[in-house]
């Protein structure tokens, strides 16, 4: 008997290995199943109501007919203003923490605060938004107040993902740059940022997805049950897809059965579309990476 012949023990271990692998595979598949089910369900139920009119007409007849234009436009407004507010702050904070901050108690406290901010429930952010932006800063219930609330809520996502992106740039790149006599800012501008843009974009994508779907933070700060007009500025109130979905599925009698699914489908498509654009852009940027 050669020493390389499989013993019964080897066989047993091999079988065990197969079983474990099968279980893990099953778990992975289970993960995909809900996603597929949700999408199929939404498409089957919602696709029939989708039409040019559904997307680009004002609601009519007590929101039981017509379209969802003000909600669609409102969500785009909310997401855009929230991005304009949170990305510059978040990226700047991450650059400071990653490139400048010494490792002392203050930095550690800031990091702890960021982690805690990420754990605050969205309804608490909503309450903060009402107190701070609506009442104290007197923005009223407006896109500005709602978007700033959303921005604060998503700030940790932007900071943490930007931090990770910046840290993934090899330290040797920076050292090489400093050795050439470049200042820290020159290093960041010319070396660190160009090499981490794709990672930063990932954070932005995550933020967009979360911002577009949130209902609680905008409910009291800027989103209305109904508005007969499109918003024209950041101090206007607005309708939003997420709240509209809640409203027509729980509050309004006589809404056609497909309507809520149509709204859900539009919301999810909007998020997927934005994600697809950013992912495409990211891939393009990564293709230009030199390492």
């Amino acid at each position, binding site marked *: 008997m050669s020493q390389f012949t499989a013993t019964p023990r080897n066989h047993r271990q091999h079988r065990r290995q197969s079983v474990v692998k099968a279980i893990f595979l099953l778990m992975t598949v289970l993960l995909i199943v809900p996603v597929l089910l949700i999408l199929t369900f939404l498409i089957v139920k919602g696709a029939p109501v989708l039409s040019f009119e559904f997307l680009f007409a004002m609601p009519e007849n007590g929101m039981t007919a017509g379209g969802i234009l003000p909600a669609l436009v409102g969500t785009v407004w909310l997401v855009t203003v929230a991005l304009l507010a949170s990305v510059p702050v978040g990226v700047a904070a991450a650059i400071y923490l990653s490139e400048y901050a010494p490792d002392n108690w203050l930095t550690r406290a800031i990091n702890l605060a960021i982690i805690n901010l990420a754990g605050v429930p969205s309804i608490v952010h909503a309450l903060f938004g009402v107190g701070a932006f609506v009442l104290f800063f007197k923005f*009223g219930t407006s896109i500005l107040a709602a978007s700033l609330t959303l921005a604060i809520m998503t700030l940790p996502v932007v900071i943490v993902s930007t931090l990770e992106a910046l840290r993934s740039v090899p330290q040797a790149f920076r050292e090489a740059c400093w050795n050439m006599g470049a200042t820290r800012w020159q290093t960041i501008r010319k070396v660190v940022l160009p090499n981490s843009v794709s990672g930063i974009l990932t954070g932005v994508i995550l933020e967009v997805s979360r911002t577009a779907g949130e209902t609680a933070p905008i409910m009291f700060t800027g989103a209305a049950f109904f508005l007969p007009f499109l918003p024209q500025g950041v101090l206007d109130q607005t309708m939003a897809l997420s709240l509209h979905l809640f409203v027509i599925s729980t509050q309004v009698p006589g809404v056609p059965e497909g309507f809520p699914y149509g709204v859900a489908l539009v919301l999810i498509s909007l998020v997927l579309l934005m994600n697809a654009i950013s992912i495409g852009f990211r891939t393009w940027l990564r293709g230009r990476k030199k390492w």
Partner: protein
Amino acid sequence: MRTACVVLCLSVLVACGGRSGSRKAIQNKGSDTLVNVAQTWAEEYKKVNPNVAVAVSGGGTGTGLSALINGTVDIANASRKMEPKEIELARKHGIEPVEFIVGYDALAVYVHAKNPLPSLTMAKLAEIYADGGSISRWDQLGVDVPDAKDSKIVLVSRQNNSGTYAYFKEAVLGKDREYRMGTLDMHGSKDVVDLVHKTPGAIGYSGLAYHTDEVRMIPIAKDDDSPAIIPCEKTALDQSYPIARPLFMYSRGQPEGEVKAYLDWILSDAGQRVIADRGYAPVRPLPEK
């Protein structure tokens, strides 16, 4: 790249310089009972005066009144009268609420379409809903409800900041009694009707306007000697149906300008036609079209 970014930011800032130029915005928030009527009013008013945008939000009577007290809305919708302590609080904030009755709502008592119960008196309804009440099974009322488990009455109620919740308690249970423990508390008038439709043994209360063909409204009698009255616009307006209530709008001080014009329009025949079409009773009988 950088120039493009700067141009983009600047153009966005210019484009959204602030509130829309000449258009006046009216903020309207409150009762979930009124929210659908308020929404239709806002939708119709756009045709009357395109320069006024009425923003409507729900959330409940309490939400609307506290927004009025905080000064964040122009008009609050309420399905109950403002309480003295709320008025006092508003005055402390320098706001004098002015009350308008904009219509009447009958609170219908809904059961499953297959439930054969012919009618109820107010006293029996109270025994069903009150804490410590004596009726908890359908057979105690002498009816056999198909598919109701053990003939048990499933109580459907509303969340406790709802004006409907407060009004039903006041009208049916009276001041001294509380709701029974273990009621299913729904967060919207429509949810109550939906749940009753899905649950054979259920009973629930909700606005007349939320009636669908899948549930049945029970005629209600004031007492054993009175006739049982089916809720409808007419019986709500002449107060012969025992659970009918006025619906209110509160303005921040005496209304002026566009807010006054809007409230005047709501109380006009055109505005009252909207509330009547929505299944509520108008404040006065309307002329035939």
